[in-house]
């Protein structure tokens, strides 16, 4: 036992790294080959996101902001996918914008993955439009409040927003009943709340999907300023299962396309890694207490 303790105390962190690698890679291989995923029980915050979108009637314009970059894709792409999936299935008018320079590519990828693949009847520029990136962070948000066309003069394809059918009747941010935000940092949900939601006088509702690191910082705003919140891959998985179960035809037993299971797949490695972390914390404390006891013995 004491030998074990001494090993723990002098443990080279690279062993921890190795353990982490295994506990993540293992489940990925297993799930990847067997295709089995873990069940999810949605928390209220995730259900709220689903409800808010479901509450909109088809044809309603919804503002979808992709404020992240590929670096956070692992966490946020699944959310983006299922959010757009539900909006498309609901037949909402999707207006995509980005305040992060790399956002527009991600928007196009998501459009390719979901809309072009599964909703070919939706027309670019009519049912959805990628307005693209604008630099200026909060400044852009403030301008949007009074004049959308001023904040985003041209779409990603270089068309003047005035000529876009999907933007008909959109004069200012408050013409969108719902803002769907996917963010990885600054500018992100916090800024949207501060500059748009709080000054729109309750005209705009907002649901957001964010990285795990932001989730605690956003809880103070939920559910008042923030109507729904998807926290990290867990939130993504919960929401994903909600969307899949609601969109899957009741009678058919057809398998859900893999791209709509991304988050739930990723929960496997999550479990592995979390259990490892928990084990590490316990071991760390065993080592600590053993150490202290030996110290006490030494002093007495």
């Amino acid at each position, binding site marked *: 036992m004491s030998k074990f303790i001494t090993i723990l105390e002098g443990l080279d962190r690279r062993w921890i790294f190795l353990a982490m690698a295994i506990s993540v890679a293992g489940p990925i291989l297993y799930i990847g080959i067997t295709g089995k995923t873990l069940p999810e029980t949605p928390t209220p915050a995730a259900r709220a996101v689903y409800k808010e979108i479901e509450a909109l009637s088809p044809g309603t314009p919804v503002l979808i902001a992709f404020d992240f970059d590929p670096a956070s894709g692992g966490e946020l792409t699944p959310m983006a996918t299922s959010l757009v999936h539900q909006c498309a299935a609901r037949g909402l008018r999707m207006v995509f914008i980005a305040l992060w320079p790399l956002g527009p590519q991600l928007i196009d990828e998501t459009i390719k993955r979901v809309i072009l693949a599964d909703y070919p009847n939706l027309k670019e520029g009519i049912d959805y439009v990628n307005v693209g990136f604008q630099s200026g962070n909060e400044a852009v948000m403030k301008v949007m409040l009074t004049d959308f066309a001023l904040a985003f003069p041209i779409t990603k394809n270089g068309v003047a927003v005035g000529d876009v059918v999907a933007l008909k009747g959109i004069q200012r941010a408050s013409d969108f009943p719902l803002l769907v935000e996917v963010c990885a940092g600054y500018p992100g949900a916090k800024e949207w709340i501060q500059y748009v939601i709080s000054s729109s006088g309750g005209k705009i509702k907002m649901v957001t999907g964010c990285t795990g690191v932001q989730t605690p910082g956003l809880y103070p705003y939920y559910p008042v300023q923030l109507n729904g919140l998807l926290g990290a891959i867990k939130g993504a998985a919960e929401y994903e299962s909600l969307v899949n179960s609601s969109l899957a035809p009741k009678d058919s037993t057809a398998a859900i396309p893999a791209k709509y299971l991304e988050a739930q797949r990723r929960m496997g*490695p999550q479990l592995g890694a979390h259990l490892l972390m928990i084990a590490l914390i316990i071991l760390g404390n065993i080592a600590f207490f053993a150490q202290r006891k030996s110290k006490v013995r030494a002093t007495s």
Partner: protein
Amino acid sequence: MKPSKTWVIVVAVIVVLVGIRMSIGQGMARAYVQRVDQSVEVKANEAHGASTEKWTEWHPVAPKKFEAAQKADPSQTKFAFSWANTIGLWLAAFFTLAIFSFLYRDNPGYRLAEAVIIGVSAAYWGVIGFWDTLVPKLFGALTPTLVHDQVLPSLPAPTTGQVVAMYFALALGLMLLMRLAPKGGWISLWPIAFIIGVTAGLKIVSHVESDLVAQTVATFDPLVQPVVGTEGGWMLWPTIWASLANILLVIGVLCCLTYFFFSVEHKGVAGRAARVGIMYLMITFGAAFGFTVMGRVALLAARIEFLFDDWLWLIDPAGKRIVEVASAVGSMLCWW
């Protein structure tokens, strides 16, 4: 064992394993593209007559598509193997492994990846700055016709205000660049002073507005939070729990604020309150830490999926290929 030797062995092992993998099933890490023939009708205007512009683009496509097309017609030309993207894929795999190798120790592979990313990303953001900021904003305001005719035909004409602002920006920029001139570099402090002043001024407003006032008002929670039942009257336990939550919240905010007092030593009542405040902060941090783990693991998972899926073709969650992954893996295990 000398580092150099270690790395030779590590690399050798990887090479061997990859070699084995390549010789199993359908091999690994190949990228394909699909031909897209663009044809656009151009309406006539004063500058040019009507015409039809035709050109060809190659878009990335899943191996499955290529395999299917080949099965159907071996001489098809719609899909093709892409050397560029295949090389890119291997490069990406190399960089991924190189960065991971830093966990073991600093090494040539990591230093190479580091050198590459510094050069590439610095230039990348420079380019972004040029095409997304300088062209539409600065040149769009100072030389509208040029930008309009060459780059962004639908960029709206600049207002006088924008033009003035952009000349001002240009002036500041040039002052900054005086730093490169042999004399008068000191003037580059002026634009910096301007920016610092502006930032200070603007942030006072935004922080007091959206943080100080908003968060203060948000804390106006009733210490007794009645939860009214279906038949009217208060429901005892829910009311107690809801009220308790509010009480804890308010106490927490006040104690944490006490912790931040600078002019009061943490002694006596203030000390005790501050201590409670620290406890709240610790709980806050613990929770944040726990939540973040999720995200970080997801990112790692994404990278490992890239290696297993796109590169090694061991798993196929997105159904990109026809090959039965399980069998490939099985045969690979047999090899070991």
